[in-house]
């Protein structure tokens, strides 16, 4: 699983890392992802999920993606249900605490049609961080003794040469592509995120290509007035797509909270029949809409207004 250093360096060297405009459409960005790629998703659970880009990949009929994320919610269901991925690597996979275990995840994994490769949450983060740092592994003191290590590809136990401690070496993750949604970035890909940072900065640095979706594209001079707020530098970014409400029905910190009616309706739909339900949802919300705005229209103006009102309330104090 650890990419040979020579390959990592060569792939990075051949990327165009210069200061250049990278603005494109969701469809154009989807063309940067190949079937079979390891795609890492930014955000966590219902937060800053790069939903618009996932939506575009499913519409583009991508196949056999290995998808990794800190914690996976409904986007994992959609990836399984559409066939875009049959392999999700994550620490927790369910719509969210209030809706209970994912019927779709259960259906696809219990029938052996998909893999949920389970790592501890910290280990996922350390794997991305090792990838970001250009090292093949970092030791952790977690997962030892558990049955988790027997069902995943990679970690190795070792006695610390300094202290003699038993350690677990977790291998670096260098995803082929990272999909990350941010509140704002410039046309070159300098991104400034607010609120919970999740693992996004490490994921961007670790990946071999980065597709940013953003609530809005701001000028480079705005970015440069507060360079200490930049979290992802343009040299790591390959595509910038403006996608308002690009996490819907999930949330984007300070901009909108989750679209709860849609999430409740989804839970009810898959509660009746997991496979038929997710396929119906995909048909209606992913395949049929003309474009991303038509998808938002399906979510409804009242929900957009309500989610946004709740979202910006973090700045009301």
């Amino acid at each position: 699983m650890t990419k040979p250093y020579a390959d990592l360096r060569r792939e990075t060297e051949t990327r165009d890392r210069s200061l250049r405009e990278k603005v494109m459409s969701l469809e154009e960005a989807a063309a940067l992802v190949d079937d079979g790629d390891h795609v890492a998703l930014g955000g966590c659970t219902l937060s800053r999920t790069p939903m618009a880009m996932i939506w575009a990949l499913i519409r583009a009929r991508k196949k056999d993606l290995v998808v990794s994320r800190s914690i996976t919610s409904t986007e994992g269901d959609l990836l399984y249900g559409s066939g875009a991925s049959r392999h999700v690597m994550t620490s927790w996979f369910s719509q969210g605490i209030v809706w209970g275990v994912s019927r779709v995840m259960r259906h696809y994994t219990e029938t052996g049609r998909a893999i949920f490769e389970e790592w501890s949450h910290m280990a996922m983060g350390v794997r991305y961080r090792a990838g970001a740092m250009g090292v093949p592994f970092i030791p952790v003191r977690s997962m030892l003794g558990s049955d988790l290590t027997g069902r995943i590809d990679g970690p190795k136990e070792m006695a610390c040469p300094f202290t003699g401690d038993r350690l677990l070496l977790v291998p670096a993750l260098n995803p082929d592509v990272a999909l990350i949604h941010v509140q704002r970035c410039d046309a070159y890909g300098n991104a400034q995120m607010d609120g919970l940072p999740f693992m996004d900065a490490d994921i961007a640095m670790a990946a071999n290509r980065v597709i940013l979706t953003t609530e809005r594209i701001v000028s480079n001079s705005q970015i440069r007035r507060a360079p200490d707020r930049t979290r992802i530098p343009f040299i790591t970014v390959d595509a910038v797509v403006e996608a308002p409400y690009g996490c819907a029905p999930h949330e984007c910190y300070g901009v909108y909270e989750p679209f709860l009616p849609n999430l409740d309706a989804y839970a009810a739909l898959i509660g009746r029949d997991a496979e038929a339900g997710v396929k119906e949802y995909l048909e209606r919300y992913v395949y049929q809409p003309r474009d991303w705005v038509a998808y938002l229209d399906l979510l409804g103006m009242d929900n957009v207004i309500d989610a946004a009102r709740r979202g910006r309330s973090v700045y009301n104090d």
Partner: protein
Amino acid sequence: MTDNGSHSAAELLAVMSSRSLEDGQTVFAGVGIPLLAATLAQRIHAPGLTILFEGGVLGPFIVPGELPPSTNEQRCTRQANMVLSNTDVLLLLQRGYVDIGFMGGAQIDRYGNLNSSYIGDAENPKIRLPGTGGGNDIASLTRMIVSMIHEKRRFVEAVDFVTSTGYWHGGTSRSDSGLTTGGPYRVITDLAVLGFDEETRRMKVEALHDGVEPDQVQDATGFELMFDDEIGRTEPPTADELAVLREMDPDRVYIA
């Protein structure tokens, strides 16, 4: 759920969990009973308690009636002292800044090993559960309080899968595996408060809740429990404690 009189089982778990927390501690809490327990402790006896959320939040102030739906969403950050990456907040466990982590699970065994991954054989499971999240990290790296409803199907002879390592095979096997710190501290159920024997690391009953008899606890458990020579009795939830819980969760989302 059992309802011991004027409070729900969930309220009992929250109250008993909160009493296991000490002032000045730093506590890793998920939403639901753990967060209610930690917030209750802050209000009643531990004003200097610090709460951490796995989503990357340090020192939030929970607003009554606005409990967050998960620990990874913006509502968790309300008036927080700091937000940081998931990786960095979990690494606080490894660095040693955390005193207690709250955990749940589908199954627990006599050594405090927890399963939240598979019911049945992992190769061909009856139920694929949501997985560890940060649970394995909490169990591996700090003292954990497990809060669970006491049922035979949950307190099992052997968990189907060790998602989060407790005292593993008992004795010194946990530290032999490399987990040299932390370990299960308490198991708090709707029947009793349980701990672990210092030597064998087997689960033992420390105190029974009001109206509960030892046999009742053993009957609800799929393995043989140890009992302290002199078994304590917990004080029932006070009106003050219940009032705080009901103020925090007025819609009874978690305390029903």
